[in-house]
């Protein structure tokens, strides 16, 4: 059985983080397909990375994914917007599902929070798996809909799903 473990990230991976973010596999399903420049990344790191909780998912001591969770509040609600960044140019379904499972274990430990994910409509794998992890589609009539779409800058070709933990 291959061993999966998590490892907290620190500031020293700033350049590796950018390298992973710019891998085609990550840009393909990202809202911005462009390569991120170092200067923009460094600025983002000081401004936004502090608000994000990220950890590596390691398989046999090698990073395969970074799990990201942006924590923010809306009125009296606490939100988490989570995502995955692949550390490899190619991944497989088994590793991806394992990574989602590990991320969900982290999310399920959070108390009284709403967790959101966005999935590219063209991502056929993930569009079929959200239900197995307890997520529900975020419909227009939902009170969070407008806020979440605006704050997270979610584009039309993305569906948003959420769950309460």
């Amino acid at each position, binding site marked *: 059985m291959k061993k999966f473990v998590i490892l907290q990230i620190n500031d020293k991976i700033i*350049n590796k983080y950018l390298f992973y973010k710019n891998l085609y596999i990550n840009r393909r399903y990202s809202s911005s397909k462009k390569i991120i420049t170092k200067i*923009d990344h460094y600025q983002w790191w000081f401004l936004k990375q502090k608000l994000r909780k990220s950890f590596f998912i390691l398989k046999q001591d090698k990073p395969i994914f970074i799990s990201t969770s942006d924590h923010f509040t809306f009125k009296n609600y606490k939100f988490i917007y989570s995502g995955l960044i692949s550390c490899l140019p190619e991944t497989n379904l088994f590793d991806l599902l394992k990574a989602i499972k590990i991320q969900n274990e982290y999310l399920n430990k959070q108390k009284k929070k709403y967790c959101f994910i966005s999935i590219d409509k063209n991502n056929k794998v993930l569009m079929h798996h959200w239900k197995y992890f307890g997520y529900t589609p975020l419909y227009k009539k939902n009170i969070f809909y407008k806020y979440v779409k605006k704050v997270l800058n979610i584009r039309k070709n993305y569906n948003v799903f959420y769950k309460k933990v």
Partner: protein
Amino acid sequence: MILFRIDLSIKYGLGHYNRIKSLANYLNLKKYKIIVDKLPNTSFFKNEKKNIIPLYEKNNYFIDEKKDANLFLKIIKSKYKNPVVIKDSYRLGYSWEKFIYKSCKKIISIEDFTEKKHFVDYYINHSPTFSIKNEEILNKLKKNNKKNCKFLLGPDYGLFNSLINRKEKIISDLVFYNGGSGNLLTYEKIIKNIIKIRKSNIKIIIIVGPFAKNYEDVCFTFKKYKNIKILYKPKNILSALKGTKVFISSAGVSTLESSFLKIPTLLFKMNNNQNLSDFDYEKLGHYFSLEKKDLNFSDKVVTLIILMLKNRIQIKRMMSKTSLNTKSIKKNYQKLMKF
């Protein structure tokens, strides 16, 4: 006798000179001569003048390695028989070394690149690339050098100025530097924008190297700014580095100096010899390195510098485990190099 042969001019800057001075210091060398193309026309070398020998006369210039070696041999044969030759030059390589080899006790080369062929007894390359043993590069080096050559590789053999005057410390928020011959006006827009944003609430030092051609222009450009201090040809940049919060510099030898003092640094890769990978600069504790072309995005650079200033403690923490230990570097050299 120890003879250094180095590149020292506006074109080649101060890096080679700083490195050999550092080596002379590590090896406690008192008697040595530095052979250069022409006598540098700057007061910076006033105290060193007695040790500097120009190789070319007034209207003669470097043509090729063989002619250079011939002239160098003349100096050896006339005055300094059987010397140890230490060479730090991008222009002189295998042919030059092979030509003078028989007339020397030992030849040592200080190098930045791994591809160049050599014929020396000691090969020094302090690039952080060698922090981790890389068999592939090591084999390449061995193939490019003569048998029994000793390799002194990585920051454990770092050659940089580490002589700090503990009493001298120039306090500032930012220090801008562009090497011994770099044009400081490259940073003009950035410096002016920072002052615009932070007004008088910031103190900036601009270090102008001894080979910089436009010292007067730099003075004129920043004349009206009271919070800018221009340091011209300082013997040592460490006192300015020690007292600053963020250092903005070209990625030359000063990367080692700021790493040694653990000063948060923003590097710009200005030349081909400054083209290390991010991961190599990280080995020295430098996590922020940009390309020369990024200077065109002055607004973004300004924002980044201000963010680095605000988050300097976080950056210092990132640098905390990287340590260039001059005592152990000195020991490493003294153990291996006995002439």
